[in-house]
């Protein structure tokens, strides 16, 4: 019955491979082949241009409130490319590039933020859940999918994305705890962008890192430079290797920055300084990766222009497809997917709704 000290080992790894100025730690370079590198670069540029376009669409009233992903492209794109098709991906709502990589149409985010449920319609054959607006409530779903994999001896894994604010939610704790207890093939990927609307990270948690929270649940955590595509890629690849080989869950904290507004309904000048934003501007993940690719002679001005042109065309085509949806609205669809068999009372309500629309259209 002594009063004694219990020794714990509160250490987490930190990983950075490509620094702010584009200098490379060659020993840590994963040596991604040229195609993979250029694919990732193109995906990040596409994500950025789509994001800019969505902001414009919102300003023009062509979509509703929009939650941008500017500055967080390396974090979610470089992690998503690690997955195999049989792995599952569970997003929050700042991972548009990850979903496009997985096979979602470029316009999915426009559809979602434009008020169409179709933006949540996971394409056939894609193992992803749709965007999730409530904070952290998607983490238990990812845990459950990983649980299913474990029960069924499926040698794959699940990645779930969330923000720093989400780590304060009960769902984060509950899902982390289950993942640890059942030793699940789950990669919990925290896009720590420093701001949960107006609340800074320092007011969100007293933990020195978010990565260390994993230790309390009995698994490992790693903090990576979230604007360093190579570090994100390596940490995620290691986490998936662990997951697929029965090594249990991993928490990855990708330290990044929300370069834009929380959503277009938000005014960050009320709570944060331009200086802080400008400091992060220098750490831009796309510019940094571009410098790396130029250093490896994989990219030059001509190719950058070519990629920009290709991306602009894809954005234009996505907007066109999105705009086409408006003509295809059937308001009665709100009943269509509620139940496998629509109960009689809803059949009656659908008919009432149909008649009301007909009357009001006259």
């Amino acid at each position: 019955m002594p009063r004694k000290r219990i020794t714990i080992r509160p250490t987490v790894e930190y990983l950075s491979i490509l620094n702010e100025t584009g200098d490379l730690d060659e020993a840590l370079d994963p040596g991604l082949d040229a195609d993979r590198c250029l694919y990732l670069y193109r995906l990040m540029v596409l994500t950025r241009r789509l994001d800019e376009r969505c902001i414009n669409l919102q300003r023009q009233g062509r979509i509703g409130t929009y939650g941008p992903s500017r500055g967080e492209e390396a974090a979610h794109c470089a992690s998503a490319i690690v997955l195999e098709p049989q792995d599952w991906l569970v997003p929050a709502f700042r991972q548009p590039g990850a979903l496009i990589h997985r096979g979602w149409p470029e316009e999915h985010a426009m559809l979602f933020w434009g008020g169409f449920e179709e933006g949540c319609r996971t394409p056939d054959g894609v193992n992803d859940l749709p965007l999730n607006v409530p904070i952290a409530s998607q983490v238990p779903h990812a845990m459950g999918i990983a649980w299913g994999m474990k029960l069924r001896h499926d040698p794959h894994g699940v990645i779930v994305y969330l923000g720093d604010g989400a780590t304060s939610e009960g769902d984060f704790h509950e899902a982390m705890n289950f993942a640890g207890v059942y030793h699940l093939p789950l990669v919990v990927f925290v896009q720590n962008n420093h701001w949960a609307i107006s609340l800074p990270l320092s007011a969100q948690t007293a933990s020195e890192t978010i990565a260390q929270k994993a230790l309390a649940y009995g698994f490992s955590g790693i903090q990576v430079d979230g604007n360093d595509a190579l570090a994100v890629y390596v940490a995620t690849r290691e986490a998936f290797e662990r997951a697929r080989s029965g090594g249990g869950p991993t928490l990855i904290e990708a330290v990044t920055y929300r370069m834009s507004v929380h959503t277009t309904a938000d005014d960050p000048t009320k709570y944060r300084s331009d200086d802080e934003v400008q400091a992060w501007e220098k750490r831009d993940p796309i510019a940094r990766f571009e410098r790396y690719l130029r250093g490896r002679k994989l990219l030059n001005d001509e190719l950058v222009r070519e990629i920009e042109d290709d991306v602009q065309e894809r954005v234009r085509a996505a907007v066109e497809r999105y705009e086409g949806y408006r003509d295809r609205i059937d308001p009665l669809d709100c009943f269509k997917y509620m139940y496998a068999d629509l109960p009689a009372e809803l059949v009656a309500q659908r008919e009432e709704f149909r008649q009301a629309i007909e009357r009001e259209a006259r």
Partner: protein
Amino acid sequence: MAQLNMVKALNLALREALAEDDRVVLLGQDIGQDEGVFRVTESLLKEFGPKRVIDTPLAEGAIVGGGIGLALYGLRPVCEMQFSGFAHQAYHQIENHMSRFRNRTRGRFTLPMVIRMPYGGGIRAVEHHSESREAVYAHTPGLYMVIPSTPRNARALLLESIRHPDPVIFFEPKAVYRAFREDLPDEPETMPLGKAQVVCEGSDLTLISYGAMMRPTLEAADDLASEDGSSVEVLDLLTVSPIDTEAITASIRKTGRAVVVHEGPRRCGIGAEVMARIMETSLEYLEAPVRRITGYDVQFPYFAREQLFLPGPQRIVHAAREVLAY
């Protein structure tokens, strides 16, 4: 044919579901080694093993949220909330996710899952263990809200709920768990969700209830028959969302008088919904205003006061006589 109480009947349904479909998994607190605090999962861990009958950490949100993930993956989870009073810690998962996946993914993902929970008063339980909040779930689009009243319909409805393609909240009237036995057929039996049952036919008055309140309601019907010679029809809703409007309408058009009985709060309760439907479909058939005998709109009292609080046969008979005399 076996004579079983409701606990054994539910146990049988779970066993049948586990045996017929290897995608069925049970999740919950103390459901394995301990066999459930009410023993509903008795011997199932032994029979089906820890990959089918899973003791979870103590977290209602993760049991339901993780259950959602299991269903998305292709399994058929049956989650147990130890008491309905604690299911509120999972309510955001139920409202924001479980009820919505089919619609928001345009049918790409569906959630064939069941959340079982004991509900209701009458067993001298501690605070938070006696509430009836079926109206909360009935008010949530996308769910089925099922409440059996006897061992036989409990087994049939639970098996049907587990086989069902959409999420089901399954309330178990714990006051009925061990109250009586009923003959159950040996072969698996199901009943359709969303269908009420006429338990006894009559022509003067309809008593409409469900769950644990079926017993005092049936007792009241007997009293009205033997003491007053009244011919009382009793309707057991069995599913309170969606509600079997057709059955209610048919009965009301026959009797012209009704009393609705439930133990949950009156305001925006199932009784209010039943009355609204009677107004909508059968106003001209009514011989008297419909009455409600329900729990009051107060917190469920601690158990020293619960027997007085819970609607009993006398209260139902009194209201029925007023309706009959109107």
